[in-house]
């Protein structure tokens, strides 16, 4: 057996302890800091994503609590108006970019190879790279607090207020460059998810057997590849306006401030679906487990996921109804905005039918998923209402919109995410979260959330504009704002209960075993926590629910989990045909590497140079990045990337 081999008949065997031991030695990461910096294990990277994204949730949450204290009563002066602008801008930017998508990437990173029956993602080093860039860009954004100049123009950063003329400090530069920086992580991650779905699966994992969370994440990441470049290029253009005096968005000299709004929302509306569709996928996969039946309408739900994402590209103008666009254009975008409620409705009815026709088991995870359905409907209806142009004119830039966005993002992202942690925590750690504390966790969050955000609809209808620093007592908004503040703190206590539960149960929770919920998908067929190589042999599956096959009698055969391709020569996994899931190629996978973290450091130098306008530093960073990438991609014989003379 030489490294020059170009093909091999894969060996088929039954799992044995000796094989497991051999794979364990081959695949495990080195211990300690060295292992942490060089790991390419999708499970470790997934956990790093989850922990970091929750840290950003806490940062954004603390900013929100300061905002709520400032707004608790009329004429308060807890913070200055400038500090208030920075707080709401950082709150929105943190939550929408650095928490809500990365948290879903965390789940997807950890679970995709397990769900798809593979040993790793298609690009393990790119996977580590996308994490490190996510972390570095988030730290870059928060460096703005250290220099006392955080972004201060909201999360959508409209010019002209964002232009140099009105905003001379580096505040906006941190936002613009931070988003471009983060976009690198999103693009790298997006490519990895798409190629992973198409290629690294087990035999028999055809497209009609994907778990819905795979459909959701695939749609989101494919959309990201097309949508993220808009905001990157818009940020580059606005940064050039500020730095080099170009005339893209400056109102003087013929610039078009409205073009920023177009480019931003062409990105940001697909983005809103990107940060909810994978979370809806979590519910579509996990809710049926607690209803003891398969999801009702699998095909309809999968197609609705894809269709929602596609229509999501054609609704951006509904954020701009109040900017004086031609009425024909507005009618079109109002129609598409209302149309999108159809695929959303399909999914809601599928979940309701699953609960209705199932035998629900009322676990904490079930509470979060059921609560999500309620919040999804409220948030969907408030959005549907503002899809209508005259109503939008009345409500735009009021607290109604703030209520809507929080119902959508907390309801459809945070509730499924926490439900997903209750569901998958036993797989990740081998221990169950405490159920009793979990139900307290749910009810405190659910009550706090509704207490905080439902009254905002009314404050909005009463005309309170969003983003005002304070308000006079005679406006009559004081009581509602106090209720909202109290609700926000109750919600925060609920989230604190979640962290306490995770922290305590990690060490003291009940031992879970491989499949505590008696769930049907592949990740539950391996031990908890899964071994570094995931599957000792590559499984082959014959149905959508490999662990429920005997009960359901579905599919045209029987899945085979304990016997299959061994692939134990190096780090290897199987590539399959994109549609049919038939074996196509044996992939040689990379081992641990410092290149992802080193490349990230080089890019960080580049962005530090750009934000400080120290051009030589930026050039050093750019050249170092190019060199790092060339070294990273240097073809290696052991990876099967270059020819080796036959005599070697």
């Amino acid at each position, binding site marked *: 057996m030489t490294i020059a*081999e*170009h*093909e*091999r*008949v*894969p060996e*088929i065997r039954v799992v044995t302890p000796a094989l497991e031991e051999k794979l364990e030695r081959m695949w495990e990461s080195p211990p300690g800091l060295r292992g942490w910096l060089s790991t390419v294990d999708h499970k470790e990277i997934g956990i790093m994503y989850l922990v970091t994204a929750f840290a950003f949730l806490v940062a954004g949450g603390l900013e929100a609590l300061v905002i709520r204290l400032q707004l608790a009563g009329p004429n308060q002066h807890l913070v200055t108006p400038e500090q208030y602008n920075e707080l709401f801008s950082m709150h929105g930017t943190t939550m929408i970019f650095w928490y809500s998508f990365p948290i879903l990437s965390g789940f997807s990173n950890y679970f995709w190879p397990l769900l798809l029956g593979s040993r790793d993602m*298609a*690009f393990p080093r790119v996977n580590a790279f996308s994490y490190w860039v996510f972390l570095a860009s988030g730290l870059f954004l928060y460096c703005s607090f250290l220099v006392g100049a955080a972004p201060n123009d909201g999360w959508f950063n409209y010019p002209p207020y964002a232009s140099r003329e009105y905003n001379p400090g580096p505040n906006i530069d941190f936002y613009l460059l931070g988003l471009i920086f983060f976009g690198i992580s999103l*693009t790298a991650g997006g*490519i*990895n998810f*798409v*190629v992973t779905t198409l*290629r*690294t699966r087990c035999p028999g994992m055809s497209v009609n057997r994907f778990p819905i969370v795979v459909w959701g994440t695939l749609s989101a990441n494919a959309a990201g*590849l*097309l949508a993220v*470049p*808009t905001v990157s*290029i*818009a940020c*580059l*253009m606005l940064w*050039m306006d500020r730095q*080099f005096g*170009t*005339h*893209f968005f400056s109102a003087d*000299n*013929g610039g*078009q401030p409205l*073009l920023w709004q*177009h*480019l931003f929302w*062409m990105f940001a509306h697909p983005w809103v679906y990107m940060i909810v569709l994978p979370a809806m996928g979590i519910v579509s996969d996990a809710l049926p487990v607690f209803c003891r039946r398969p999801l009702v309408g699998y095909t309809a739900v999968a197609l609705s996921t894809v269709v929602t994402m596609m229509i999501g590209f054609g609704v951006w103008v509904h954020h701009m109804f109040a900017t004086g666009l031609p009425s024909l254009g507005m009618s079109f975008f109002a129609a598409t905005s209302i149309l999108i409620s159809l695929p959303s409705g399909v999914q809601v009815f599928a979940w309701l039918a699953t609960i209705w026709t199932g035998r629900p088991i009322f676990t904490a995870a079930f509470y979060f998923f059921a609560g999500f359905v309620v919040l999804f409907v409220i948030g969907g209806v408030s959005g549907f209402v503002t899809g209508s142009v005259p109503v939008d004119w009345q409500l735009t830039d009021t607290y109604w919109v703030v209520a809507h966005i929080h119902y959508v993002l907390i309801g459809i992202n945070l509730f499924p995410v926490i439900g997903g942690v209750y569901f998958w925590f036993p797989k990740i750690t081998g221990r169950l979260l405490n159920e009793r504390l979990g139900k307290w966790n749910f009810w405190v969050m659910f009550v706090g959330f509704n207490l905080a955000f439902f009254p905002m609809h009314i404050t909005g209808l009463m005309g309170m504009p969003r983003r005002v620093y304070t308000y006079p007592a005679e406006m009559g908004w004081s009581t509602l704002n106090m209720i909202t503040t109290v609700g926000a703190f109750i919600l925060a206590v609920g989230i604190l209960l979640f962290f306490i539960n995770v922290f305590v149960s990690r060490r003291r929770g009940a031992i879970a075993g491989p499949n505590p919920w008696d769930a049907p998908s592949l990740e539950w067929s391996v031990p908890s926590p899964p071994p570094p190589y995931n599957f000792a042999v590559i499984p082959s599956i*014959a149905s959508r629910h490999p662990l429920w096959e005997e009960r359901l009698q579905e599919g*045209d*055969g*029987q*899945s*085979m989990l304990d*016997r*299959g391709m061994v692939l134990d020569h190096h780090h290897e996994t*199987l*590539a399959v045909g994109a549609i049919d899931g038939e*074996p*196509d*190629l*044996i*992939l*040689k996978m990379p081992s641990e590497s410092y290149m992802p973290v080193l490349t990230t450091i080089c890019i960080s130098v580049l962005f530090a140079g750009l934000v400080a306008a120290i051009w030589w530093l930026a050039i050093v960073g750019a050249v170092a990045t*190019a060199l790092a990438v060339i070294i990273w*991609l240097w*073809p290696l014989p052991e*990876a*099967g*990337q*270059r*020819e080796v003379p036959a005599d070697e």
Partner: protein
Amino acid sequence: MNRSVARTAFPYQPALPLGSIGRRSSGFWGVVFLILSEASIFAYLFFSYFYFSVQPHPGPWPPSGPPDVTWAVLQTAAALIGCVTMWWADRAAARHARAGLVVGLAISFGLSLAFIAFQILDWHGKPFGLATNPYSSLYFTIGGVHLGHAIVGAVMIGAVLLWSCLGYFGPARHVPVTVAAVYWYFVAVVWLGVLFTLYVSPYLG
């Protein structure tokens, strides 16, 4: 034993290719999706250009009249001939023709450098600068973002040329050559978009 299990894996007789091979390699697929994402950057840039051109503006569009196309024609030639030589190099690698591979890549590398030089010469002769007006900002930004991609393409071709000289590639293992070729095709196709937007559309009225 039933149909589907028997069909997929047990016993699995045909040998499977191993490692990084042609269009079945992960690297190839990754670059295809990278190109898809980068191509959309240009879609949004062209959208911005035409957005400006249809909005009311004082005076004609472009303000300084339609641009001179001399250098753009030369750039087009360099980009398209580069596609042919990259395709030839890729074929040569597959047929294990070392000389063809190295020569093809060397010519392509020269053409990519020529493309970059023509772009810089085009900019050099312009009477306006980046900050003169919205048109000039768009002109240099669209050209500049494309130039950035051409530089990446040239670096890729240069690296693959180096690796070919070191004798890394042969009939089975030459994915980096294929990837560099596909990337240059992308640079050339997007250049045609830039050509139409910046240099042809002003002449269409």
